[in-house]
């Protein structure tokens, strides 16, 4: 048994390594702006990978994942800011910043996870919704977070030993983002394919049966939340480095919903799907924006469309995918016949609760 698991883990780690090297190599083909976008995609991927486990495997709907990213961003900004004041720089400052991000995001995620362990679907969703709404208030009330303007993040220059290789700061930031994403997501992939993932699915499928099988649903849910929060926090730290600022406006409800859209469209519970979703939610808004500006619409209409058209498209995709294509994109690409037969099978033995209170 252990041999199987370890070989599977080795496979995941090897695949992650290969993908990381591939992404690092790809940065040489991209211009500065594309590299910046790659960094943002990697940051969002950190958050969506955790969220897809949370929603897809344990069935906990978090509408506040942007807040966990913000926690990571603020944690990084505070710790790196302190380190900068103490005249630290380079890898030490970066490490302290990441530590700050992990501590803050993990702490908040742990608290939310404890709440989530006690709460059913709509209650947890509502609690996290209230949390997102309250984020600007926190930013303006807690001293040191800088209110609506947010905090600036120490600039992370290209280190001297890499300067001959890399051609821009954006590329260096993309490297940081890709490496951090690899570190954040690989453990999640290992968790998902191992015993922990099995326990999460068991809790989602039937909590009473899971408990009879000796699983503590509360602990599984809390752990899933903490794992997702840590990963999202790392994503927030990366985003803070790439944008050099962290403010509550960047982590509003719309962004939280965008993360959910990415996860659902990619396919709930699939890490690959989370990656596809992350690419989609970063690139589609930019694509639609360039499209609407290039068509030459009247200024008034263009102003109304900007920002809203993207939300409209994402909302429609969210509904369509959930109703028509419940597996998401990852399911669709996993072989048509396989997915069709799997879907037919699932239709026939769909779980029907005995009473509605069971939900």
């Amino acid at each position, binding site marked *: 048994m252990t041999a199987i698991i370890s070989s599977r883990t080795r496979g995941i780690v090897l695949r992650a390594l290969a993908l990381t090297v591939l992404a690092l190599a790809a940065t040489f083909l991209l211009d500065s702006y594309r590299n910046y976008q790659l960094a943002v995609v990697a940051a969002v991927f950190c958050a969506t990978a955790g969220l897809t486990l949370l929603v897809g495997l344990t069935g906990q709907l978090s509408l506040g994942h942007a807040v966990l990213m913000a926690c990571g961003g603020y944690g990084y900004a505070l710790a790196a800011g302190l380190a900068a004041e103490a005249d630290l720089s380079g890898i030490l400052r970066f490490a302290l910043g990441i530590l700050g991000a992990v501590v803050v995001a993990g702490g908040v995620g742990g608290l939310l996870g404890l*709440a989530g362990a006690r709460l059913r679907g709509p*209650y947890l969703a509502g609690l996290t919704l209230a949390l997102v709404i309250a984020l600007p*208030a926190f930013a*303006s009330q807690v001293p040191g977070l800088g209110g609506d303007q947010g905090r600036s993040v120490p600039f992370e220059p290209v280190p001297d030993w890499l300067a001959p290789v890399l051609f821009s700061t954006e590329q260096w930031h993309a490297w940081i983002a890709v490496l951090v994403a690899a570190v954040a997501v690989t453990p999640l992939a290992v968790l998902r394919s191992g015993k922990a993932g099995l326990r999460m699915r068991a809790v989602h499928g039937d909590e009473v049966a899971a408990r009879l099988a000796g699983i503590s649903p509360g602990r599984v849910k809390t752990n899933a939340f903490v794992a997702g929060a840590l990963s999202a926090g790392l994503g927030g730290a990366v985003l803070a480095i790439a944008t050099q600022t962290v403010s509550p406006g960047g982590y509003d409800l719309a962004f939280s919903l965008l993360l959910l859209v990415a996860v659902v469209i990619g396919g709930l519970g699939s890490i690959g799907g989370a990656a596809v979703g992350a690419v989609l939610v970063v690139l589609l808004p930019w694509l639609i924006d360039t499209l609407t500006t290039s068509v030459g619409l009247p200024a008034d209409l263009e102003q*109304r469309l900007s920002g809203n058209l993207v*939300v409209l498209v994402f909302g429609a995709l969210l509904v369509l995918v959930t*109703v028509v294509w419940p597996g998401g994109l990852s399911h669709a690409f996993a072989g048509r016949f396989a997915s069709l037969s799997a879907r037919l099978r699932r239709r026939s033995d769909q779980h029907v609760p005995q009473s509605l209170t069971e939900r």
Partner: protein
Amino acid sequence: MDRLAFLLATGLARGLVIALFALSLVIIWRAARIVNFAQAAMAIVAVYVAFAVTQATGSFWLGLAAALVTGALVGAVVERWLIRLVPSGTPLPGMIVAIGLVMILQSAISIIFGPKHRPMAAPFSEQPFTVGGVAVLSPYDLFILLVALGVVAALGLLFNGTTLGLQMRASAMAPEVSRLLGVRVPRMITLGWMLSSGVAALAVLLLVPTELGLNAHSADILFVHAFTVAVLGGLDSPSGALVGGIVVGILISLVTGFLGAGLAPIAVLVLLTVVLLVRPGGIFAAKEARTA
């Protein structure tokens, strides 16, 4: 002391609107056992129709009627042509579709009507009466109070005193058994949606004149507050929603008045967290609703 009385009075008025919206969440919970995250966006659609009717005819009352009718229609359409398509084994797909619906409706409204806030006039004066030198409720607040109490009474009568209400409760609690006993379960659920989104439209229509104006996002905060209230009172209890609404309204008003407006969302969050952790089913909820 004057300040306290004033804050309590405004809190009461604000709380009643929240309570009314929370009632709509209670209705849909009782009728279909779901929390409708799209409630606010659906209500905003109805209020835009009401706004157009009021603009065209100059009558607030016609607008009010239009809001109720459109709200009910939107509820029926969403239930028939969207929610029924969603796999209903677990609550998760329903919630995700509702969130998608919020995104669609809000962005469509923003595209059609633009981002600006459209002011709406209240049908009664918003100047508060003064009693012994202290400003208390305005005529408009009294109107909201009467409407809220009327809706609670009517709903209590409907759910507890009529065959229709019994059938609605039965189809929500035990659909199979109800069907066997001859209740038309799908129709009851549609009816619950219509009733719920009608009440929600009414609540948002009453809210808008007291706020900046009508906008696609006018009811977002109201939804969060109403959700807090519905959880506080228990999603099953109309009177709990009423009491919870007033409590939350007064809490927001006191925190805003004494500690600053910035702290109000945090106060709501703290209240919600404490209630959810101490009694996950709500303070007024019946014990049997949730195990573990």
